[in-house]
C-alpha cells in the first residue's frame, strides 16, 4: 500500500503515512489522476533533517476518501516532475521549488509562485519576474497592475495581444504575501491563530476559519455539539449568499448594467448586516471559535434571519430574471471567457469554477461533514464554461443556500453557550480538513511534533488552482472582455499569496 486512506477531518500518526521511493510516489499519485473522480487537494514539502519530505493528498470524490502518501527527497538531486503528466500539479511543484530549491528536470516552467520570504533563492524578487515573451513586430504587450483601477487587491497581469485579441495572459502574484503559514507556527496562543485564520481572505472569513477550527478540533480530540456545527454551516451558506450576490453586482458593473449593479449591491447589505447583528462584524470575523461559539444563533436571531431571507428572495429573483433577460448583458456574458471541460480537468479546477464547466466537484457532496451528510447536497452544474455559466451558477447556488438555511434553521433549538477546548494537540500527527467555501474547496493541513506543537500549517485556497483557469479562459477574447472574465471568477489574491 502506497498511501493511507483518510476521511475529511481525520487525524493519523505521521508514521502511519507510507513513505515511498520518489519514483513509486510519482507513479502512484499520477496514476491516481487518470481517474476523473480523483484530484489533488494538496501537495507540499516540509524540511526533514537535511532532506525534504513531500506529502501528497489526493481526494477521491466517490469513496469520500483522501489518499495521503509521502516521499523523502534530497535537495541536491533533480527529479522528474508530476506536472509533465498532469498539469494539476504545476503550481504545487513550483511552490516546492520556490521554497526548497528542488529542481525538476521536465517541469513546464519553474517560475516563482509568491516570492515568499522563506524562498530559497533570495536573488529572485518580485520586480524581476521572468514573463513569457514572444518576439514579433505585430504583437504588443499590455501590463496591468500590481495596483488596479478599482478598490481591489494587487496582482500583475501581462497580456500578449494581437490587435485587440489576447493571445496569452500571464498572471504574476505574491504582492499580498504576509507569511501567514509561518505566523501560525510563530504565534502560540489559540486566539492568535484563530484570528490569523479569520484574516487569510476577507471574503472567505467563515470558510477559512471553519477549516481551521475543524482541523484544530480534530487534532486536539475536541468534541463540539451538533448545534455549533450547525451554526458554522449556516454561517458558511450565508457567506456564499452574500459574496455571490455581491459578485453578480460586480459582473453587472463590468458590463455597464447600472440597475443590476445597484440592486445586487444593495441586496448584499441585509445579509452582511445580519452577520453584524449576529456577531458584531459584517464579514463574520469573531464568529467561529475553536470548541465554542461566542455568539449562538438565538431564537430572535433566527426569526430575524428568516424574515431577511423572505424579503431578500423575491427581490433577488426579480433582479436575476431581469438581468439574465437583458440583451446587452447577455451579449457580453454569453460565449465570453470560456473554460472548456477538458482544460478545466487538466488544470484541476475546483469549486464554482469547476461546476460551471460540468466538473462535479463540491466538498459538500464529495467529502461532507456534520449536517452536510444529511443534506444530500446535489451540486449545481453548468455546461458552457463561459461568463454566463458563472453568473447562472451564482444565481442558483444562492437559491440553494437559502433553501438549506431554511431547512437547517428548523433543526436548531440550542441557545446555551458551551466551551470545550482541549489545548493539547496530539503529538506526531497529521490531519486534513476540507471545506467548500463559496469559491471552492479550502484545504488546511497540519503536522505536529513530538510535543504536540505545530510543525507545519499548510493552507490552500481554491484560487491556488483556479488562477490558471482564468488565464486559459481569456485566450482569443477581446482584451476589453478581460474585466468581466476576471470578475466572473473573482479569485483571491491574499488567499493565494498567504
Amino acid at each position: 500500500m502506497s498511501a493511507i486512506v483518510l476521511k475529511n477531518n481525520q487525524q493519523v500518526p505521521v508514521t502511519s503515512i507510507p513513505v515511498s521511493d520518489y519514483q513509486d510516489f510519482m507513479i502512484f499519485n499520477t496514476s491516481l489522476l487518470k481517474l476523473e473522480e480523483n484530484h489533488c487537494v494538496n501537495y507540499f514539502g516540509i524540511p526533514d533533517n537535511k532532506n525534504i519530505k513531500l506529502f501528497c493528498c489526493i481526494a477521491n470524490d466517490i469513496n469520500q476518501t483522501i489518499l495521503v502518501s509521502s516521499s523523502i527527497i534530497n535537495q541536491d538531486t533533480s527529479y522528474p516532475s508530476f506536472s509533465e503528466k498532469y498539469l494539476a500539479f504545476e503550481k504545487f511543484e513550483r511552490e516546492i521549488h520556490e521554497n526548497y530549491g528542488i529542481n525538476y528536470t521536465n517541469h513546464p516552467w519553474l517560475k516563482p509562485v509568491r516570492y515568499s520570504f522563506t524562498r530559497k533563492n533570495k536573488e529572485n524578487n518580485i520586480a524581476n519576474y521572468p514573463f513569457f515573451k514572444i518576439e514579433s513586430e505585430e504583437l504588443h504587450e499590455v501590463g496591468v497592475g500590481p495596483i488596479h483601477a478599482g478598490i481591489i487587491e494587487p496582482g500583475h497581469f501581462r497580456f500578449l495581444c494581437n490587435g485587440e485579441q489576447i493571445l496569452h495572459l500571464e498572471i504574476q502574484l505574491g504582492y499580498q504575501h504576509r507569511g501567514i503559514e509561518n505566523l501560525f507556527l510563530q504565534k502560540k496562543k489559540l486566539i492568535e491563530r484563530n484570528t490569523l485564520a479569520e484574516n487569510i481572505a476577507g471574503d472567505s472569513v467563515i470558510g477559512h476559519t471553519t477549516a481551521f477550527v475543524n482541523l484544530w478540533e480534530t487534532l486536539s480530540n475536541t468534541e463540539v455539539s451538533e448545534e455549533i456545527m450547525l451554526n458554522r454551516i449556516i454561517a458558511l451558506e450565508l457567506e456564499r449568499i452574500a459574496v455571490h450576490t455581491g459578485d453578480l453586482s460586480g459582473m453587472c458593473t463590468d458590463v455597464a448594467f447600472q440597475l443590476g449593479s445597484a440592486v445586487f449591491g444593495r441586496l448584499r447589505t441585509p445579509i452582511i448586516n445580519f452577520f453584524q447583528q449576529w456577531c458584531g462584524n459584517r464579514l463574520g470575523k469573531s464568529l467561529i471559535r475553536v470548541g465554542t461559539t461566542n455568539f449562538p444563533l438565538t431564537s430572535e436571531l433566527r426569526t430575524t434571519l428568516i424574515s431577511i431571507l423572505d424579503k431578500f428572495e423575491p427581490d433577488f429573483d426579480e433582479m436575476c430574471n431581469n438581468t439574465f433577460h437583458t440583451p446587452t448583458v447577455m451579449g457580453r456574458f454569453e460565449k465570453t471567457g470560456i473554460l472548456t471541460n477538458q482544460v478545466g480537468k487538466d488544470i484541476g479546477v475546483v469549486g464554482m469554477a469547476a461546476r460551471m464547466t460540468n466538473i462535479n466537484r463540491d466538498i459538500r457532496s464529495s467529502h461532507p461533514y456534520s449536517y452536510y451528510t444529511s443534506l444530500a447536497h446535489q451540486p449545481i452544474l453548468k455546461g458552457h464554461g463561459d461568463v454566463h455559466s458563472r453568473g447562472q451558477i451564482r444565481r442558483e447556488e444562492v437559491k440553494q443556500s437559502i433553501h438549506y438555511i431554511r431547512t437547517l434553521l428548523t433543526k436548531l433549538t440550542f441557545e446555551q453557550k458551551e466551551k470545550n477546548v482541549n489545548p493539547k494537540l496530539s503529538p506526531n500527527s497529521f490531519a486534513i480538513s476540507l471545506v467548500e467555501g463559496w469559491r471552492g474547496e479550502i484545504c488546511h493541513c497540519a503536522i505536529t511534533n513530538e510535543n504536540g506543537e505545530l510543525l507545519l500549517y499548510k493552507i490552500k485556497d481554491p484560487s491556488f488552482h483556479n488562477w490558471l483557469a482564468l488565464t486559459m479562459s481569456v485566450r482569443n477574447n477581446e482584451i476589453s472582455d478581460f474585466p468581466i472574465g476576471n470578475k466572473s471568477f473573482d479569485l483571491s489574491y491574499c488567499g493565494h499569496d498567504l
Partner: protein
Amino acid sequence: MIENIKILYHQGKQYIPNLRTVEAPGIFRGRPIIKLENVDNEALKDCCPTQAIAINPVQIDLGKCTFCGECAIAFPNKINFTKDYKIATNSLEGLIVKEGDDKPITLNADLIRSEIHRYFKGSLKLRQVSAGGDGSCELELGACSNVNFDMGRYGIEFVASPRHADGIVITGPITENMAKPLQTAYEAIPEPKIVILCGVDAISGGIFVGSPALNRNILKNLKVDLYVPGNPIHPLTFINGVLDLIGKK
C-alpha cells in the same frame, strides 16, 4: 423598460438619510468603555490576540484592536464595547482608550493642516492601495460608495489614477512585496495630499505584527492625516472620519 421601473419601485428608498447620526444595527462593537473595576489584569491582557490591551492603567489601543470582543466576553464587568462608530482620529494617542474614559473620540483640530479644509471640503478624490490587505477593508471601502451609504453625496469618491487623487487610502499590513508599488503610487499623487490608514492591519500591523514578510518603513516618512480603526473598518467609521477631517458638518 416597465420591468426596470417596477424593480426601482420595489426597491424603494435604500439610502441612509443621515450618515452622521444613524444607529448601527445589531451588536456593533465600536468605542469601548473600560470601567474602574479590579479584575485579573494579566488574564485580561492575555485574552487579546493582538496585544491591544495594556495594564496600569488598563487601556485599549484601537490601532491594535481587532474588535473581536474576546475581552468584553471574558470580563463583561470591566470592558464594554459601545455602538459608537465614530472612532477615527488623526493621532496615535487619540486611539488609546483608558479606563474610566467615556468621551467621544474626535480629531485633534491642531493637527489638521489648514489647506485640507480649504481644498477638499467640497470634493475629495481618493486612491486606494491594498498592501497585503485581506480584502475585507477593501470590501467595506467599496461599500462606502454603494446605494446604502452613498458617500458620493459629499463629493468623496475613489478614483482609478493616483494622478487624479487628492489622497491615498492604505489598507493591509504593508508587505515587503508591495512596499515599492505603494511608494510609487504615493509619489504619483500631486501635492497637497492626504494619507489615510484604514483598518488595524494598516495602522499597527494587526495580527501580522512580527512577520518577516512585512516592510512598514514607508510609514516612517509619511504624515498620516487619519487613522480609521476596525477589522475591517465599518463604512460609517470611514465616512464620518473623512467628513471630520475635511471639516464638513
